[in-house]
């Protein structure tokens, strides 16, 4: 707790500090590649024959996903706090890579915790992290995925708080992380909102983003929270189907509980034991969801739907073949819902989809899913 209190104080001071904000903006522009384009997916929209789909291209960022927005912010904060070692949990490996990247950039030590199952699914990202100089700890406990990696990172942090900064990758975990990660990701929605107004002369009818912990979705939604005409839609992973129990849809099928220092909807049994999540995309494979999403849902401001593994892979293939853009499996969930909605809407309607990451890392998983051998 003292570490969290120290972090909260430091962060609340820095978020108003113009020097810090300017420094962050400089790194985001010169290093991460911001602003990212807003791209009108004309061929996909034509194929579906309904609403026009716009993609916020976070997949074009350095390291291949939105995660870098947050890790640059947290690493700058860590440096201000005098910490010399970064630790992180990772699911798909994107947050681990983004953390290892900023550690290399700022000359800090880095250790990443990753579930054994995810290490298997995302071996390319494991190699990237090692090449970047990080130590990757393979977590064999529990379901050997993201939640167990987070347990292990917390265990490390309890013992190392004096010199270590825990870079949490999602809008989850103890306060102030959900707030801080949202703030660092809010640049996505701030840019996208301006870009929509500049190119379409109006706001979108709906913003669509995938939700595991929910950082890219919070980043997109935040700027639109007061735009009552803009529907906010989060897409959870239904895995093999909600009725199979093999899914990661905490809002659709979870109950309120407390895990990793936050109170939110969790996949759990009737006695409060956390259930294993499942999704084809490692980054959505988490049995909880950021508490602000729970609030957005319960307050009615956002709604949450689900997309199965099958639908996500179909969406990945359709976007790839119509636009030449291979999305990450996580982002493919958001694309899948847009594909579902667009045909039923008139042409003048606008859908804004957050393409949170690119699919390079998922080629092994997709090949395996489609029964294609890569060796």
């Amino acid at each position, binding site marked *: *707790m003292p570490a969290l209190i120290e972090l909260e104080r430091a962060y609340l001071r820095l978020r108003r500090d113009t020097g810090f904000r300017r420094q962050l903006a400089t790194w985001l522009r010169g290093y991460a590649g911001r602003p990212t384009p807003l791209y009108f997916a004309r061929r996909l929209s034509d194929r579906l024959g309904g609403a026009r789909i716009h993609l916020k291209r976070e997949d074009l960022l350095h390291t291949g996903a939105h995660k870098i927005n947050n890790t640059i912010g947290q690493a700058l904060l860590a440096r201000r706090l005098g910490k010399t070692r970064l630790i992180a949990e990772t699911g798909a490996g994107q947050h681990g890579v983004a953390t290892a990247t900023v550690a290399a950039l700022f000359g800090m030590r880095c250790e990443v915790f990753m579930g054994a199952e995810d290490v298997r699914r995302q071996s390319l990202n494991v190699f990237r992290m090692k090449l970047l100089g990080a130590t990757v700890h393979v977590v064999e406990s529990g379901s050997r995925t993201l939640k167990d990696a987070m*347990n292990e990172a917390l*265990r490390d942090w309890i013992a190392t708080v004096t010199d270590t900064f825990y870079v949490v990758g999602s809008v989850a975990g103890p306060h102030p992380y959900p707030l801080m990660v949202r703030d660092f990701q809010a640049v996505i929605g701030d840019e996208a909102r301006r870009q929509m107004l500049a190119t379409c002369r109006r706001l979108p009818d709906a913003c669509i983003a995938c939700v595991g912990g929910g950082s890219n979705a919070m980043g997109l939604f935040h700027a639109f929270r007061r735009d009552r005409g803009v529907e906010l839609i989060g897409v959870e992973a239904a895995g093999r189907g909600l009725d199979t129990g093999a899914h990661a849809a905490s809002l659709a099928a979870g109950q309120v509980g407390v895990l990793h220092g936050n109170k939110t909807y969790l996949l759990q049994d009737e006695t409060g034991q956390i259930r294993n999540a499942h999704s084809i995309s490692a980054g959505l494979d988490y049995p909880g969801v950021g508490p602000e999403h729970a609030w957005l849902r319960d307050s009615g401001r956002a709604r949450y739907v689900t997309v199965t593994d099958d639908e996500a892979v179909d969406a990945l293939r359709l976007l790839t073949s119509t636009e030449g853009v291979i999305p990450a499996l996580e982002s493919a969930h958001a694309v899948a819902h847009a594909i579902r909605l667009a045909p039923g809407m008139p042409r003048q309607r606008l859908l804004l989809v957050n393409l949170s990451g690119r699919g390079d890392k998922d080629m092994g998983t997709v090949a395996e899913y489609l029964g294609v051998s890569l060796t």
Partner: protein
Amino acid sequence: MSRIAPAFAALRARGEAALVPYFTAGDPDLDTTRELVLAAFAEGADAVEIGVPFSDPMADGPVLQRSAARALAAGTTLPRVLELVAELRRDVEHPIVLFGYYNPFFRYGVERIAADAAAAGADGFLCVDLPPEEAAPLRTAAAGVGLDVIALLAPTTPPGRVRTIARGASGFLYFVSVLGTTGARAELPPGLPDLVARARRTTDLPIGVGFGVSRPEQAAWIAGFADAVIVGSALARLIEEGGRQDGPARTSALLGTLRRAMRDAAARRTG
């Protein structure tokens, strides 16, 4: 009413520190846990912490992680842990603390767990992942039925915060000896007596020390400056190795050794 304060008062009057073992309920099964607890009291344990197993024990090291996993695999649930407490209560008058993570208690219902734990004969709760800022509902419910909520202090807890925590706590304060998860350590931090002494300046509650304790000389040392010596992982390791068959004999032997070391040290100090 909780048996914790009277038990500590009696020990203090005798100039002794309490020996408090921790057992994960249901590791390897609930019948064995009952046997382990009764054997521990026979060896001179003064109170017991009964662990409610949780799927994601993030404050625990590998030994207690495996212990919780075995207990869950054996089908242990909170209602069955309460039955165990009720059974123990028929045989013993020692304080029993329910030790666990918040979610199983929360899911069961805070009011309901307080009432049912009191009815079963428990004396208090210790929730490792419930910070004092969020503990008011459990504290209120527990106080309503005369149970304690034991708070944790860490070596990094600043003095001002120790005061805040102590104000909301009852029973005793659990001082975490090391920065880190549970699990036996070869060496405990040499500055521990000073840290405990510093905490004592802000509170009259008894202070127990846990995390990392496994050896007689460590127990004897802690008994010299704290009110309780808490031992968990070292026992779980013996249960893991000895199983149903040999677990109780081995844990009793360790507790007997710790108890004797604490008494000998106390005798040396007063003599």
